[in-house]
């Protein structure tokens, strides 16, 4: 496992633990946590807070027949077999969305050699896979909201740092950046945004209307 240098914020881990993040962000959190023991244990801590909050929220009596109803539920619900894909570069939560691993992604071109697959879009937040050939830049863009980018293959660099496999960049609207995939192997990342990316030049803005980036 590569050494991970860029982690999730407390805010995101707490939101995930509380179950209040949009699905798009939850997928990035679950995927990063699958790769990162540090964030898995930090998440465990926020879940422990949730457990304590739940235990002190105040009990409300269950209905009289609730225990029998639960035992009937146990007896009558067949075990749902969980679909498992062969081990690849994508952790299990991401494989579930893709329906497989790297070779099963249904890529669509978005221009400049960059390809994407949109995985989920809910409550204004969208999560997609991006495939950026080595040495290629994703057009200079700022954000109107929060953007999470998790690297799954290769690496990218921007004005702030280098991001390798397992690293997650948390960018807010203050960060105007130009991520460039490192030379060599294409960079594959999982990116979630809660607002459309806003490109800083005229042409990509037009393209944006067609490619939903």
């Amino acid at each position, binding site marked *: 496992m590569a050494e991970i240098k860029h982690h999730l914020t407390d805010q995101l881990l707490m939101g995930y633990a509380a179950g209040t993040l949009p699905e798009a962000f939850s997928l990035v959190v679950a995927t990063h946590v699958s790769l990162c023991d540090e964030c898995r*244990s930090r998440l465990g801590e926020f879940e422990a807070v949730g457990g304590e909050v739940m235990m002190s929220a105040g009990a409300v009596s*269950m209905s009289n027949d609730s225990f029998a109803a639960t035992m009937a539920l146990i007896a009558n619900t067949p075990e749902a077999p969980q679909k498992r894909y062969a081990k690849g570069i994508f952790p299990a939560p991401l494989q579930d969305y893709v329906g497989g691993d790297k070779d099963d992604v249904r890529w669509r071109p978005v221009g400049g050699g960059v390809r994407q697959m949109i995985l989920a879009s809910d409550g204004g937040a969208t999560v997609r896979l991006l495939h950026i050939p080595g040495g290629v830049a994703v057009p200079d863009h700022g954000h109107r909201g929060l953007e999470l980018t998790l690297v799954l293959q290769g690496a990218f660099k921007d004005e702030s740092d280098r991001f390798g496999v397992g690293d997650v960049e948390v960018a807010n609207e203050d960060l105007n950046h130009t991520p460039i995939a490192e030379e060599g192997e294409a960079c594959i990342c999982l990116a979630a945004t809660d607002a459309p990316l806003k490109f800083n030049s005229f042409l990509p803005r037009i393209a944006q209307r067609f490619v939903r980036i």
Partner: protein
Amino acid sequence: MTEQKTPARAEWLDEIYAVRDTQDQAAFARLFAHFAPRVKGFLMRSGASADVAEECAQEVMATIWRKAALFDPARASVATWIFTIARNRQIDMIRRARRPEPEDLPWGPDAEPDQEEVLVLQEETNKLGEAIAALPEKQRELIQKAYFGDLSHSEIAEQTGLPLGTIKSRIRLALDRLRHTMR
């Protein structure tokens, strides 16, 4: 041995093991009596109607029965584990959204958790509960609201002053140990 406090029993573990190993309905009934009303109360505080919260709490308890073998006491207390199940069922049943979950860590053949680690994790979880109870009311409310879903995640950014860090290192230890036994 020198005189010291009686070590805290890791609460509800015997019941979980009894459900896991012998499908013990009496042990499950004790878990049910303690946790089901609290799960229901939590779901109602989070905005569910009494009927929906009742149904969801039954589903949560059924999941505990089915997944007892997956519970890892070196990484979470029973209350923490039940909270995560309740939260997932809530997203699934009440918000009707999909809930991506981190990949499970596979258990090694001899990965029975160390009793000492289990007890320390339990103790630290208890301390966390006490620390939450001892917070100034405003801060405690902020944390509760975050978990009841009454705060946006930007509001959660507020500092809460919780003694976070100890449970984290405990879980980290358990993960390291797990990875080690897997090697």
